[in-house]
């Protein structure tokens, strides 16, 4: 038999899903490209971020004129420390996954928070850190960072 030393190599499987964004998520992403976070005011007068296409209570389509700007600052409502970020996550060093309720919103968005583990707490004030170049994607928000 020939050499039986076992080989090993990196191997990946990848598929790029193409998704149509619809009127609300499309408007949300277009807003991010313009460095503006949008929510939508629903039938119970709550501002939901990111904006859903349909009302959670009545199931009626929400109109584009119900879109309202929120943020760019907000408050951490919950968080979890991520000590070992994986490939493809928003940051390549330890960070917090945080739920952030932006000013003017009634719901929280999940994103990365660039802060020290000793610094992060529920109730802390944070702000959007925009990507150097915005393209119309959730990654236009590079992460959140503590307010100065």
């Amino acid at each position, binding site marked *: *038999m*020939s*050499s*039986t*030393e*076992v*080989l*090993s*190599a*990196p*191997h*990946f*499987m*990848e*598929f*790029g*899903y*193409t*998704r*149509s*964004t619809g009127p609300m998520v*499309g*408007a949300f*992403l*277009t807003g991010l*490209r313009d460095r503006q976070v949008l929510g939508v005011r629903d039938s119970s007068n709550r501002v939901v971020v990111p904006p859903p296409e349909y009302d959670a209570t009545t199931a009626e389509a929400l109109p584009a004129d119900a879109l309202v700007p929120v943020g760019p600052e907000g408050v951490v409502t919950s968080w979890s420390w991520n000590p070992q970020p994986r*490939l*493809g996550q928003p940051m390549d060093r330890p960070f917090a996954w945080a739920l952030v309720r932006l000013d003017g919103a009634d719901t929280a968005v999940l994103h990365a928070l660039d802060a020290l583990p000793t610094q992060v707490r529920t109730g802390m004030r944070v702000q959007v850190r925009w990507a150097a170049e915005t393209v*119309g*994607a959730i990654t236009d928000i590079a992460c959140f960072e503590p307010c100065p």
Partner: protein
Amino acid sequence: MSDPVTGIITPIRLDYTYTPGTSPSAFLRGMKDGKILGRRCPSCGKVYVPPRGGCPMCGVEFAEEVQVSDSGTLVTFAVVNVNFANRVIDLPYVSGEVLFDGADTTSMVLVQGIAADEVRMGMRVTAHWLPREEWDFTFANIDYVEPTGEPDADYASYKEHV
């Protein structure tokens, strides 16, 4: 002002470290040298390409490593009319199962050098290898198979592999 966003591409990716095991490792080393290596079952005599550790029919460990030919018989095939991600092959193209001479298992290979509507079962084909300097530890060193021009093989010679 730019157009509103109407669509996004969201890649889903899984990263692995692939460890092929001893027998497939030997096969892949063979590919690096431009050889198709199989292993013969000491019980039933069948040659498996690429080899695993043992014969799935007899349950015994393989003993003998054998090099098979890079020419063989196209035993069955499919005509592909829709390109998928990252493939840049003129449509329609043919994906074939090739029984390399000396092997008892078939390998899926791209068929080129013939119009899709002229491809047939039993057609004799030979491997077209990538340039030697591009050879790596992969079956993809065989870029495709193409017809040899020999007479087609008798159905009886490959019917158990269809």
